[in-house]
């Protein structure tokens, strides 16, 4: 049987069983398991549980705040990685301290910080708020949610250390980081499932996407080991993409759909498309991500194997990856139209988080197609586009995963903390720096990569000056993301203490481009007027109409 199909059949079967168990419960064992899980989440922690108060919303808040700090660290690590790509000896003085910084290792550390530190903490933090809201109950254990956030941060620190030095004192550092990470994941899954079990409300599609995102990652790992594909290159490639499709894509889809509706005040545009995203996430292979599954290989403590693909696996893998365009398009369309409601403009464009969600939804389609080309190129063994795999991966992280998860977190945080960010203007400035730096910086770097591929194909040995200049410009422009992360961080932290309380009146729009007057030519709705960018101080001026029949303009009026 094919490696891909045998693994996927186990994955699909386990997901289906999990769904049935979550829906129907465990019958007579349910009460016992529920009581034991609650005991493990709080009482079993002993004095540790008394360290935190466990106030409502504290779990989501702590996870999101730590995610913001990781946003800054990941952008800094990625920036240094981009710089060292064109100037490898820029940090040679650090060798005096025994540290030899290499571009690829800093990219690797940056990806751990971005994916698990920033995006992962935003996903879990937002999920801890959204799921109880959708289920109309309180989170099973706020105390556990708060405590586990620190253990998760510790696991990221270990993973980053491991990315620079895989073995310390003979110990596999990344494997230790993964163990801590999985332990926290298990606690979060138990916490969320107990919350689900306490409710009788029918869960909306975003909630299911968040649940499948949480349970999908361990199930993907179990399926790969159960099928015996873990020691093959194809099995390792598959587990990397299944984990990415569930924990990252599915969770982010759930958070984005919820936040798009919550932030804009519009109902979710299509429940059917949300359902398509759920099914498409599980029953296809998501092409987003790198062609090299080294991150999954290292985290699972496996030995990297060469990618050997049979004809059947190639056909099936390519088909299922092409099929993943359906959930990607469905998600993008659903978010964008929900944000706009019945107008041509985005509702509440000044609200922190909305621009990020809008931007991430726009980038889904082009990068989804780009990633599909790169992945099928690798799966078919052509390997002509391998040179741009890393930059496509970075583009996906910085223009899809981070904007969508950050946007969702910015929408969720006021509800969890009780206060808005300090300044909407600074939030918008941070958005432009973050998104502009990422798009321009990484696209220039991609142009440099493409130039290098072309020269390599033409057997030109001399390095290109143009390629070097593009790479240098790209790294400098990417620094905008570092600045954006700093501004976002200070704005959010100040907002926690001095931001406007959410119980107060609605925040008026603070845009500097608000029109002073709105010409009213025909009957219209208040929604349309606000969607045009008008604020409360904008004067609505009725434009008078005349019933006098029009005539040619007289050129010599005075005569």
């Amino acid at each position, binding site marked *: 049987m094919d490696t891909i199909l045998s693994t996927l059949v186990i994955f699909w079967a386990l997901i289906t069983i999990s769904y049935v168990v979550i829906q129907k419960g465990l019958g007579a064992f349910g009460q016992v398991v529920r009581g034991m899980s609650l005991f493990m989440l709080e009482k079993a922690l002993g004095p540790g549980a008394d360290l935190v108060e466990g106030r409502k919303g504290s779990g989501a808040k702590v996870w999101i705040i730590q995610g913001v700090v990781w946003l*800054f660290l990941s952008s800094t690590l990625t920036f240094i990685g981009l710089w060292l790509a064109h*100037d490898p000896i*820029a940090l040679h*003085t650090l060798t005096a301290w025994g540290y030899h910084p290499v571009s690829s290792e800093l990219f690797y550390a940056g990806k751990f910080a971005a994916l698990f530190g920033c995006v992962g903490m935003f996903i879990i933090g937002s999920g801890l708020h959204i799921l109880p809201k959708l289920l109309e109950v309180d989170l099973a254990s706020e105390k556990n949610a708060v405590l586990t956030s620190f253990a998760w941060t510790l696991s990221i620190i270990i993973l980053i250390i491991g990315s620079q030095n895989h073995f310390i004192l003979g110990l596999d550092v990344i494997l230790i980081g993964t163990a801590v990470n999985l332990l926290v994941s298990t606690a979060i899954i138990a916490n969320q499932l107990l919350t689900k079990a306490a409710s009788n409300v029918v869960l909306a599609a975003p909630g299911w996407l968040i649940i499948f995102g949480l349970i999908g990652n361990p199930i993907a790992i179990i399926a790969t080991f159960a099928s015996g594909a873990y020691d093959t290159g194809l099995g390792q490639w598959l587990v990397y993409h299944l984990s990415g499709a569930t924990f990252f894509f599915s969770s982010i889809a759930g958070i984005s759909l919820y936040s798009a509706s919550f932030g804009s005040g519009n109902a979710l545009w299509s429940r059917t498309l949300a359902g398509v995203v759920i099914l498409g996430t599980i029953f296809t292979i998501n092409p987003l991500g790198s062609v090299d599954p080294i991150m999954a290989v290292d985290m699972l403590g496996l030995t990297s194997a060469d990618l050997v693909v049979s004809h059947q696996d190639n056909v099936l893998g390519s088909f299922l990856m092409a099929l993943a365009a359906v959930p990607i398009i469905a998600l993008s369309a659903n978010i964008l139209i929900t944000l706009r409601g019945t107008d041509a403009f985005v509702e509440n464009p000044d609200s922190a988080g909305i621009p990020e969600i809008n931007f991430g939804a726009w980038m889904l389609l082009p990068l989804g197609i780009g990633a599909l080309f790169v992945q099928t190129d690798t799966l078919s063994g052509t390997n002509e586009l391998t040179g741009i795999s890393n930059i496509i991966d970075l583009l996906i992280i910085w223009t899809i995963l981070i904007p969508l998860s950050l946007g969702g977190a910015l929408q969720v945080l006021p509800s969890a903390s009780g206060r808005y960010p300090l300044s909407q203007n600074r939030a918008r400035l941070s958005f432009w720096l973050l998104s502009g730096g990422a798009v321009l910086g990484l696209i220039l770097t991609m142009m440099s990569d493409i130039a290098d591929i072309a020269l390599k194909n033409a057997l030109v040995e001399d390095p290109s000056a143009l390629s070097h200049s593009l790479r240098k410009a790209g790294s400098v422009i990417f620094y905008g993301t*570092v600045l954006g*992360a*700093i501004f976002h961080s*200070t704005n959010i932290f100040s907002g926690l*203490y001095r931001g406007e309380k959410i119980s107060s009146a609605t925040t008026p729009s603070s845009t500097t481009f608000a029109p002073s007057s709105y010409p009213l030519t025909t009957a219209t709705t208040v929604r349309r007027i606000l969607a045009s960018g008008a604020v409360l101080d904008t004067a609505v001026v009725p434009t008078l109409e005349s019933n006098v029949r029009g005539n040619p303009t007289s050129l010599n009026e005075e005569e």
Partner: protein
Amino acid sequence: MSSDDSSKIGQFLQGEKEPSSSWVILVIGVVVTLSFLVIYNILYPGQDLPVISSLLPMFEGVFDSGIWFFILGAMIGAFAILGTILTEATIE
């Protein structure tokens, strides 16, 4: 002297707003510093600046790449984040 006036003696008072003229003093300070450097170079051509010239060699080889300026900015940002957390948590 009334009792209200006497109660102000010994108190430290600080205004909430910064007078715009205080920036003039700072600008004058910068201009004077630059003028001093120019005059020093004219009076003692080729002579190293005292103290500073003996400190600078310590950083040779460290700041020989532009990346250090960006890292310096990131470090300032890190301290800005840390400072924001500390000051916001302790402010009255």
